[in-house]
């Protein structure tokens, strides 16, 4: 009976905690929108009209919703790739590079006319993307795990190499590059290697749903498997994890490589579903945005779904906003930045409060001693 009661209280605490973090996030977003509204007003546009256009651009029609989903696709996949890293205590900031490598991998197979069944061709492309991006991700993974190289530096530097590698592939690699193009790009993907469009007249490909499914799968992996338990243990206390017998090096290598593979799938889906070619510099910062997505979600896979959709809605709605109201296109990044700042700011305040509570309650004997001294 006693145990049951405790259990109940325990669950209640989790719920309270979650609603606290969700509420905090929402309040941060609200303040971010408020502050950006002020800036929009300063730039001479009625913020209500601007936000009206933003909401219509994100949710106003089926088309708008599909735009949001299409934009969410790389953010979902990239976000979950970073998020599992956060859970293990590593910052896997190489999504940008993995996306390029995945795209190259998909293109090498995708532009060839192999006469295959579409499903098989797509599968081959994805497999090739996984292999290439996985190998790419294993480099910083190995460096971090076995040589102690900072993973942020390693992955960001590798991003540049991936960008220039892609530039070379799409302008000079004869198997893939389109010769005589006005902009460096690959040949068009074969019809059999393109992902199907789910709603005619939109660009909605299966990417966002694959992303959501992956988020759900990783949520279960993290919470209900030994692998996930080791990952979380490593993230919350690496020393304790090592003491408990976790092979932390292997675990880090695996986590970074898994992130890379998911990033590679993200890049492959982007070119096979949306762009139909690999263009020079086609990712344009989405890989870094997915770090922000994971950060906003606090590394929680289910949170990634929400925060990726939030980012995508702001981006898609922001485009409509600047088309219809003439707000500068940079306002979009400002809104996203403001929301992030406020959400993270609240996190800092909460942590401080927590520290205070912890430090005063840490040693009750001290308090007693202090009281006694006061009495004297």
């Amino acid at each position, binding site marked *: 009976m006693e145990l049951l009661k405790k259990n109940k209280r325990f669950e209640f605490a989790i719920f309270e905690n979650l*609603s606290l973090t969700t509420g905090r996030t929402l309040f941060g977003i609200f303040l971010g929108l408020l502050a950006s509204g002020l800036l929009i007003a300063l730039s001479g546009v009625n913020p209500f009209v601007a936000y009206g256009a933003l909401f219509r651009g994100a949710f106003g029609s089926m088309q708008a919703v599909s735009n949001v989903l299409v934009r969410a696709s790389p953010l979902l996949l990239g976000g979950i790739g970073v998020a599992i890293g956060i859970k293990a205590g590593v910052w896997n900031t190489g999504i940008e590079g993995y996306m390029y490598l995945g795209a190259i991998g998909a293109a090498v197979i995708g532009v060839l006319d192999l006469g295959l069944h579409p499903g098989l061709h797509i599968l081959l492309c994805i497999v090739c993307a996984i292999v290439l991006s996985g190998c790419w991700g294993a480099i910083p993974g190995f460096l971090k795990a076995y040589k102690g190289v900072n993973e942020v530096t390693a992955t960001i530097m590798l991003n540049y190499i991936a960008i220039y590698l892609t530039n070379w592939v799409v302008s000079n690699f004869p198997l893939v590059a389109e010769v005589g193009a*006005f902009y460096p790009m690959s040949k068009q993907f074969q019809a059999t290697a393109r992902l199907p469009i789910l709603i005619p007249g939109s660009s909605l490909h299966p990417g966002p749903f694959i992303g959501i499914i992956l988020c759900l799968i990783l949520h279960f992996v993290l919470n209900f498997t030994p692998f996930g338990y080791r990952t979380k243990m490593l993230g919350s206390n690496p020393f304790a994890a090592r003491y408990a017998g976790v092979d932390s090096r292997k675990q880090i290598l695996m986590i970074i490589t898994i992130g890379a593979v998911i990033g590679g799938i993200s890049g492959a889906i982007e070119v096979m579903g949306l762009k139909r070619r690999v263009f020079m510099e086609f990712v344009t910062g989405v890989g870094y945005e997915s770090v922000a997505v994971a950060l906003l979600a606090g590394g929680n896979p289910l949170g990634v779904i929400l925060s990726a959709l939030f980012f995508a809605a702001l*981006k898609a709605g922001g485009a409509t906003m600047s088309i219809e109201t003439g707000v500068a296109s940079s306002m979009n990044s400002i809104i996203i930045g403001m929301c992030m700042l406020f959400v993270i700011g609240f996190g800092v305040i909460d942590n401080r409060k927590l520290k205070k509570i912890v430090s005063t309650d840490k040693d009750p004997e001290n308090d007693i001693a202090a009281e006694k001294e006061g009495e004297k």
Partner: protein
Amino acid sequence: MKKIVVIALVFIMVVSLAACGTGNKGDKTKEDMTGSVAMVLSGLITDKAFNQFTYEGMMRAAEELGIKAAYKESVTQDEQIEVIRQFAQQGYSIVIGQGGQFGEALSIVAAEFPKTKFIFSVGTDTYGLENMSAATVSYSHAGFIGGVLAGLTTKTNKVAMIVGEFYDNHRMMEAGFYAGVAYVNPDIETTSITTGDWADTVKAREASLALIAQGYDVLFPCLDAAGAGVAAAAQDSENVWVVGSVADYAAEYSAENVTVGSVVFAWEALGYLEATGKLTDGKSHIIGMADNGIAPVINTTLDSDAKAVYDAAIADLIAGKIDIVD
């Protein structure tokens, strides 16, 4: 489970907010969309280059013709299709994609909206679609005029072209340049080099100094920001001249003392022509000298002989007597 409930609640909140948004703006007055034009740009409309000038050309046309014009700047690769489709859905008659990276996205949306006209600006491919046209300024004409100016200037009879990288259009420009030099004097030695980077000023300067050391005394750069490096190299050397292209080198890089002239790409004229609706016939257009696609600026005074050669060259070019690809 509770997490899912929270997520669902958030969704309901967001969607209901959206519903408020749509409710307020439901009765939007219908505007006259005949001839209306929209432009998607990869950069900012204040970049003092390519994007700004084409945009200004479109706005000039819109003002003169009294048509509705709209634009979206800084369109990244992941939003190209989405933004172009939005313009088509809103009923714009002409949608212009400004830059070589828009071709594929334009062709995808053009297939969905057969009644809307699409222009692939600074491109040549129409993807076989009737409602998609392409338009660009003539790189080979620019190269030819640059070649004539370089040929008239050189004393050592060695002239060189410097580009970031050879894309298709720069190959045409190179051929035009050689033809222009040969028009003045077939004995002049020519070469071309790539620096591998359109914006690396230091690299461009080093490459220029290497050419100058080999005796090349007229440099013909086709670069972006790196052009400043070529101008600097010429300024640091004796009797070396620059024939600029794309931008006006004398004004842009304050190199009046070494700049013979520049073949400026008239992006403004291109944007203007595109917005007027004259280029929407489903064909690929190259705007050359005859249509003011190239605007040569001359910073020195040519003597009467040289002036005669230059004028004859321009006249021949406009008349189509020069045997170069458009």
